[in-house]
């Protein structure tokens, strides 16, 4: 049959689909997530795992701390485009920040940095924040253990 006019080929597909309504920055972070991957075990100072695949999304996050700053950060995410994009943006925001600065990053900061996200996807942005806090907490625990070990070392 003849192809109706609303079936015309479009060279540039529309980025805002009828279900998704994400802006171009969100699409960009979904398509090219920053800091994606895992850190090697010997460079990982903190690791966070949050979310539950059965509830929709999950994130793993690795940090490497040098001189009190987040020198390296990496993540992997399972979830909707909103979860992937906000996770990616969170790692961008946290990179090179001091621990204290990183702790203060909120889900609203992530949404704002992305230039907004659909209302029903706002909860996604909490995933990265919680993963980062978990990784920092993990680092603090390891740091204290290390300090304790150093303290308890028999002095020469």
């Amino acid at each position, binding site marked *: *049959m*003849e*192809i*109706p006019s*609303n*079936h*015309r*080929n*479009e060279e540039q*597909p*529309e*980025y805002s*689909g009828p*279900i*998704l309504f*994400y802006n171009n920055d969100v*699409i960009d972070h*979904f*398509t090219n*997530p920053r800091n*994606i991957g895992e850190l090697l075990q010997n460079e990982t100072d903190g690791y966070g*795992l949050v979310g539950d*695949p*059965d*509830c*929709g*999304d*999950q*994130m*793993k996050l690795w940090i490497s701390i040098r001189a009190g700053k987040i020198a390296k950060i990496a*993540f*992997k*995410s*399972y*979830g*909707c*485009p909103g*979860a*992937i994009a906000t996770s990616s943006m969170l790692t961008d925001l946290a990179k090179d920040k001091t621990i204290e600065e990183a702790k203060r990053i909120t889900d609203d900061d992530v949404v704002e940095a992305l230039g907004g996200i659909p*209302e*029903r996807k*706002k*909860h996604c942005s909490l995933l990265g924040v919680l993963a980062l806090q978990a990784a920092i907490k993990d680092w603090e625990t390891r740091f204290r253990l290390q300090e304790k070990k150093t303290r308890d070392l028999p002095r020469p």
Partner: protein
Amino acid sequence: MIYLDHNATTPLDPRVLEAMMPYFKDNWGNPSSPYRFANRAKTAVEKARQRIAECAECKPEEIVFTSSGTESDNLAVRGAAYTLRSRGNHIVTTSIEHHAVLNTCKALEAEGFRATYLPVNSTGAVDIREVEESLIPETILVSVMHANNETGTIQPIKEIADLAKQRGILFHTDAVQSTGKIPQPLCKLGADLISFSGHKFYGPKGTAALYVRENTQLAPVITGGLQERGFRAGTDNVAGIVGLAHALSLAMESSDKEYTRLRELRNHLESRVCTVISGVKINGAEAPRIPNTTNLSFDSVDGESIVLGLDLHGICISTGSACSTGEPEPSHVLLAMGLSPKEAQGSIRISLGKVTQEKDIDATIHALSKTVNRLRAISSV
């Protein structure tokens, strides 16, 4: 653009648009008006009714025009419930119905009716024995959809119709997703009430109908004037009704050939997906299905991310799940079939149509494989 979401809607067939145009431009009279000019509109509506009746193999006066599949479902379920209230308050339906039926039953429950939501097996089909066991003396209506919109699974409608008839219980089927896709007149389904909607078979949006078996009483959902013999008030959507009838007869004319063609294309798609991509499950593959629909679950990726990934390749598909209220809610249909929330979350629906060619399928497989591989590479699961 490659459009593979024909279960959501279809493009208007240019021939249908052409048939509708005179009723926008020239014959714009109100069919209920008393002068000759308006008669042309009235005649068009009655001709359309006649034409639909021929396709459906029923009497013209058994067709009631509505504005949507949802309205048809509401008229059937609410209309029957209110009319038969004095006889009983129990409704039997399934857990995989369209929300037009499910949420109407829930609303009726809040008004004091009782509803049984029958389970389905792993292929998405209801068991006729379970239907039988659910019937009680207070049962006034059974409503079971013909083909499911997410998986395409076809329900044993004829058997349920026979059972309901034996028990003297009114039977409604939502045939919105199957009408025009199966080479069989609607009334062969044997139901007392049948919903169908124009935009699912290349007709205009905002046009639908409910088949109402003669001598069936239904309380109207939209009250007002006496249009549609009191079943549905409101000035007739003349051009839309003309389009609905034209679209249905075109769909039925080509349904034999299209049925075979689409089934072969769909099967080609499914076998290619399973060859090219690992960790895929076809949902409802073992059940009889409408020929154009496939529902696929992918391990370790989210369906909405696949949909967006394909959108970026210019390909339109949808998720099996609809994220409606903030929290992502996996598809009630897939969960009812026994899929885990994670499997349901990782599902997509691809629905083919009459513009779909084999090259579209091959391009889709290519894009799908790239998208799924990329998402799996970044997935934490």
